[in-house]
């Protein structure tokens, strides 16, 4: 069995199916978690009807979405219109292929993994932009332009922090990054105060950038459910919309994985005991919970507030952090 698994095509197939299933399961059940968590925060009950405590709700939602007609409005750019949901969802699956879930579970170890994830993450914006542009709807175009402005603004501090982490770890390899943090929680990048005393701040900034990059509230200019209908994806229906939705949640998963790997020591246990997949998932879903918690705590900020936050606070602070890290690494 293990011999069969280790042959390359079989291995790739197993991981491809596994990742697609992982994405689908997460996208489905994160919507339920989102709705349940929002109801806890607002002292409601959330979905309760389908299955015990609404546990089968995502399946019902999926069936409903799959059963809907895909409407292609008159005058849209058909090729781009159909292509853009695919362009949004494929990079996410690519990203998950290089994430080391544990010491042995990783589809493909790329020694420039961090670079690959960050570049594919920026690819995602293009899909949304094409979707808005191809919709032949001026509001979608406006929303798409906002998304581009937002993502460009927040990619810079994200990359700066990633660079400062590379300065610390000397590697783009995510597996290597985690291995360097093995041991107790004092070895995690988050607590490497000797290398840079601003490390927790950097983690916070990275988290904020993650929220903005995945178009999550309070930075959800793209969707803005309550006032923009669905922004760039207004004209999509059925599974076209579903793909955008899945990729949004999958992006959150990838982002949380990245925070876990870069700052929280990946699959390592805080006390050096029994490292493994379970610790990775504990940390990852903890971060996802915080993402949801933030969404249901804060109102959406205005667009200039969003850009001000990035250009006036995040970028200077992350630049300062990069500089400080370089100096500290050079000195010690």
């Amino acid at each position, binding site marked *: 069995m293990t011999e069969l698994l280790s042959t390359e095509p079989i291995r790739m197939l197993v991981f491809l199916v596994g990742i697609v299933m992982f994405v689908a399961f997460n996208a489905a059940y994160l919507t339920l978690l989102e709705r349940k968590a929002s109801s806890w925060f607002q*002292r409601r*009950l959330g979905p309760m009807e389908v299955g015990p405590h609404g546990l089968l709700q995502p399946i019902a939602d999926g069936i409903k979405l799959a059963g809907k007609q895909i409407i292609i409005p008159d005058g849209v750019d058909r090729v781009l219109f159909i292509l853009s949901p695919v362009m949004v969802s494929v990079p996410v699956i690519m990203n998950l292929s290089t994430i080391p879930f544990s010491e042995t579970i990783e589809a493909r170890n790329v020694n420039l993994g961090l670079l690959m994830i960050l570049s594919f993450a920026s690819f995602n914006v293009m899909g949304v932009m094409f979707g808005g542009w191809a919709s032949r709807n001026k509001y979608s175009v406006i929303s798409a332009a906002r998304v581009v402005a937002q993502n460009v603004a927040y990619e810079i501090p994200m990359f700066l922090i990633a660079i400062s982490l590379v300065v610390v770890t000397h590697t783009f390899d995510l597996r290597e990054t985690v291995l360097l943090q093995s041991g107790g929680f004092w070895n995690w990048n988050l607590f490497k105060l000797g290398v840079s005393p601003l490390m927790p701040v950097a983690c916070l900034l990275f988290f904020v950038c993650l929220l903005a990059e995945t178009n999550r509230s309070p930075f959800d200019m793209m969707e803005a459910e309550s006032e923009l209908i669905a922004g760039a994806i207004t004209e999509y229906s059925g599974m076209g919309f579903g793909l955008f939705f899945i990729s949004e949640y999958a992006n959150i998963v990838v982002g949380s994985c990245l925070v876990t790997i870069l700052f929280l020591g990946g699959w390592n246990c805080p006390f050096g005991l029994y490292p493994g997949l379970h610790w990775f998932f504990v940390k990852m879903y903890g971060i996802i919970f915080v993402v949801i918690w933030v969404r249901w705590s804060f109102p959406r900020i205005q667009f200039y507030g969003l850009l001000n936050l990035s250009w006036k606070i995040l970028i200077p602070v992350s630049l300062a952090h990069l500089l400080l890290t370089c100096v500290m690494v050079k000195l010690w």
Partner: protein
Amino acid sequence: MVGVVRYFRDIALGLYTLMVGMAVTFRNMFQPAVTLQYPHEHLEMTPRFRGPVELIRDQETGQPHCVVCMMCQKACPTGCIDVDGEKPAGAKRKVPTRFILNFTTCSLCGLCVESCKFDALRHSRVYNQASTRKEDFIMDLLHLKENGGAS
């Protein structure tokens, strides 16, 4: 210099207020939910709620207090009450044989309840009254089920 101080103070203050906001939601997460699962659960209506009128029955015999004095029928401004009764042989008072409330015209004014001198009528606390059939609102109060509703 003042600008620099304000820059950092604004950041710190902003972070602090964000934390306060998150603490509020976190505390509320552990509070019990206030939702009423409506079709599965029902609220008990308040005592003075005016539902469609019902007959008050004797606690022991289950017979209505009504003596068919017809006061309610006369008091009703829309004429939605239709009472008829008979006097069984040997009985002291009349007993109703028909008590129909046409709820489609009833305005719940309560004049029938006020006019009743024998403590035989009261407003029920029924509020789930929706129906798609008009006949459901021609209510036979004599044979109405205990929990009410459009029977």
